[in-house]
């Protein structure tokens, strides 16, 4: 039983909160030298430290501290001048020490914000400020695979397998303060926040932010209250792992809670599991009996005291914020706001900018990345940024078209060749033989053959119906496997048929 989203939000005020976990892209783990590459054989990236063997000790990864501080700075946080790690104690087989080294009451970064933009009904953008409570650093756990059960969950499983490759990968947790005043669009704000955060993190180069591989994971908190009342009891939906799911998770939780509240039922404070297939969540463990993690300062590590000059240097060297860059692009490239949003959503904004920086006109760069390349990425299930073509290469293809040595059709073949690993654009042109044939002598035979093959069309053209030339141009292009310059072909055909425009 649910109440439709829009209706629910006319009756209740939403408060949302987001906890985002980001796996940092450091070469080694948080407290040892093990490799962090994704997808290795189980338990091959392990050592005494990340397996929690008796006697092993952690050593902090400095790069991870630096990345966390940069994230904090990009989110306008205060950076601690002195802070400690803490142990979060609980038993779980994928946690080798049965405590997680994390941060508790002394996080590295506190009290920031992130401005996000949501579209209004009329297409204008409105900025919503999402307050950030804290950004802290911790270690990831291993992964447990439950075998033999119906759902992959521990319930009903015959046995479980544990892979500790992920154990100890540096994980940054970014926690918002309760976000109030999202009015009729908490789901949209939540999605925009995660999207913006992802762009910020990508811009910083601190993580590959791949939600599908779990390097960016979200927990979504939602509560509803009647206007004027205190905040309601919140639920926490865990492991919401795509932008679309963030929106759906908030939406479905608003609908579920509104229905319960309407019936006079209370909301149980609990953890809920989100199901990608249905877009709905189911109840997990109740949080009413709070787990006591027995936090205390990690005695195996010395306090972290970032030098203020160093922090100032990091701050000065931060890249342009995505929102600022977006505004600049809109102005510089004369993009519409919707175009910019489309590019952001498609994950190509940086790529477009880089392509423009490499010399391509904005419109061409946009068309490639929102068009053929976005489609290619989509159909092969990767992010555009992961395609094996660089913005510089795209710009060179654009240049070849502008210079007349490639047609639009040939250009696609060149790009596909680069994507297929056939080398630089120029090499693809050479090996595939894709250069435009504009040698009129070489085209003359094809032109004659086209006229001979379609006498009807030729007659029509001679009779003044010039638009019929398209069919003949098509024949020539086909005969030359697309390598002819269509405008040259057209001119030659008309000349041959004695027609002038």
């Amino acid at each position, binding site marked *: 039983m649910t109440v439709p989203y829009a209706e629910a939000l006319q009756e209740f005020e939403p408060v949302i909160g987001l906890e985002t976990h980001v796996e940092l892209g450091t070469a080694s783990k948080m407290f040892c030298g093990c490799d962090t590459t994704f997808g290795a054989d189980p338990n091959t990236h392990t050592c005494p430290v990340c397996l929690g063997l008796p006697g092993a000790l952690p050593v902090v990864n400095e790069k991870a501290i630096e990345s966390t501080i940069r994230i904090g700075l990009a989110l306008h946080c205060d950076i601690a001048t002195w802070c400690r790690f803490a142990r979060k104690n609980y038993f779980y087989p994928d946690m080798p020490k049965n405590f997680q080294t994390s941060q508790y009451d002394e996080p590295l970064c506190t009290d920031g914000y992130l401005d996000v933009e949501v579209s209004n009904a009329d297409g204008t953008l409105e900025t919503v400020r999402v307050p950030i409570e804290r950004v802290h650093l911790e270690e990831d756990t291993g992964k447990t695979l439950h075998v033999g059960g119906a759902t992959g969950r521990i319930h009903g499983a015959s046995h479980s397998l544990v892979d500790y490759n992920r154990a100890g990968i540096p994980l940054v947790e970014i926690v918002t303060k309760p976000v109030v005043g999202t009015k009729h669009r908490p789901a949209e704000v939540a999605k925009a926040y995660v999207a913006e955060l992802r762009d910020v993190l990508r811009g910083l180069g601190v993580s590959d932010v791949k939600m599908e591989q779990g390097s960016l994971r979200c927990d979504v908190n939602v509560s509803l209250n009647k206007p004027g009342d205190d905040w309601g009891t919140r639920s926490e939906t865990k492991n919401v792992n795509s932008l679309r799911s963030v929106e759906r998770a908030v939406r479905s939780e608003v609908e579920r809670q509104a229905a319960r509240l309407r019936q006079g039922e209370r909301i149980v404070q609990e953890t809920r599991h989100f199901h990608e297939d249905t877009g709905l969540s189911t109840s997990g463990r109740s949080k009413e009996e709070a787990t006591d993690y*027995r936090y205390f300062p990690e005695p*195996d590590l010395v306090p972290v005291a970032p030098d203020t000059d160093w922090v100032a240097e990091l701050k000065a060297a931060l890249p342009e914020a995505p929102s600022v860059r977006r505004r600049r692009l809109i102005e510089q490239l004369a993009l519409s706001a919707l175009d910019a949003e489309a590019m952001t959503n498609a994950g190509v904004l940086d790529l477009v900018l880089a392509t423009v920086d490499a010399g391509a006109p904005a419109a061409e760069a946009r068309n490639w990345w929102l068009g053929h390349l976005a489609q290619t990425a989509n159909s092969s299930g990767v992010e555009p940024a992961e395609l094996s073509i660089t913005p510089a290469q795209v710009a060179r293809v654009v240049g070849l078209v502008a210079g007349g040595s490639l047609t639009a059709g040939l250009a696609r073949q060149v790009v596909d060749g680069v994507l297929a690993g056939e080398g630089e654009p120029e090499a693809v042109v050479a090996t595939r033989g894709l250069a435009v044939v504009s040698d009129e002598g070489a085209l003359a035979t094809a032109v004659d053959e086209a006229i001979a093959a379609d006498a009807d069309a030729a007659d029509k053209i001679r009779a003044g119906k010039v638009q019929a030339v398209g069919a003949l141009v098509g024949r020539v292009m086909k005969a030359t496997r697309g390598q002819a310059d269509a405008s040259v072909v057209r001119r030659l055909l008309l000349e041959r048929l004695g027609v002038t425009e």
Partner: protein
Amino acid sequence: MNDLTRLTAREIAAAIAAGETNAVDVAQAHLDRIAKIDGQLHAFLHVDSEGALETARRVDAGEISGPLAGVPLALKDVIVQKGVPTTVGSRILEGWRPPYDATVVERLKSAGVVILGKTNMDEFAMGSSTEHSAYGPTHNPWDLDRIPGGSGGGSSAAVASFEAPLAIGTDTGGSIRQPAAVTGTVGVKPTYGGVSRYGLVAFSSSLDQAGPCARTVMDAALLHEVIAGHDPRDSTSIPSPVPPVVEAAKQADISGMTIGVVKELSGEGYQPGVEQRFAEAVETLTGLGAKVVEVSCPHFAYALPAYYLIAPSEASSNLARFDSVRYGLRVGDDGDRSLEEVMSLTRAQGFGAEVKRRIILGTYALSSGYYDAYYGQAQKVRSLITRDFTEAFALADVLVSPAAPTVAFPLGEKLSDPLAMYRQDLATIPSNLYGGPAMSLPCGLSDGLPVGLQIMAPTMRDELLYRVGAAFEATMPAPVPPLDWEA
């Protein structure tokens, strides 16, 4: 050579270097002695004859040299050695062979020290008598019916009984110094961070410190220099040069030094015989040219309760990893029981009563709602004790006290009274809470049993212990246990 086992480490190294004996003969002599007497003593949990002789052969082949090359050593079973069983005195790690070497072990190996085997200890280093070992107690070579101290009773008994000239101990609240005191040997807890903890199975991370056990101050200094020094794998390891302990042991001159007698480390709980020997030791120090003053450390009275909050708290977390999933004991995994049940059964059977007592204490002290009153308060006491030390060291170069309040007590005497057992560490715990170095060395006998003199120094001034210790040692012959029980 006569009996190779009666030589000091320095003498052994010199004899090998001079070609008067060789490392294999030395190792074999000690292995033979262990084979002969350890059935009665039970200082060793595991003897690694093959590994020891292999190292000795490499020393004899000239592959390794150095001031302790070829000298045998007993390693407390709390320190991991690759491929050699490490139990920490507990059933829960029975059969586990570590896949890596502790930093201390790496340093011993590269110095050519011959590791004879692993010594008995109170389970997870929790205890003052070695009676809490899951593998049965060690006996004091001075009187087999008495305790050898703890937790490192195996290491001290091995050194005192000439099974090994050197041993490694670890000291969280006195586990090197109290055994040294009651066995008539020298034991040093270096400055916290002076010796790497990498590969030391943690009891209480902020207090644990490995250090040397020997029969002479000079031998302890030689071993100290081998194992100490910065280790990038231990974040709490101090990145400074090792204090010049061997040089100080050679200097052995204390004229002009000021020595502070800690008022609070005497009186109730201290046996009259112990206090008597201690008073004589202070007179000896005066006679050696030191100025003796009395200092007051008012917060030492709270050291024991603070320690019994901090150490169990850290232990409750450190020992969580022993859950049967990755290594060690696994109980009840019959295919039907849940993981949680198997974990519970394993921990219920794998840990002894004292370990469980401390896990429960620590879990309670860290619980939300109690944290500030217990763990938080104990940390404040720790700061106050540090301040007491700092103020005392403004008045004196080193501080002295009895190392243990009593001589070795009979086996079983305090097993049913944990608090009485805990009070064995009254004098040693303050240095652990502060982090500074401290030594126990023999200062005579009371009722035929050894008494230990404790010397305490400021952090990273470990050399002061050796300077005072060597000067004092020169005034009295090293005590030798009667060993009348030997078959």
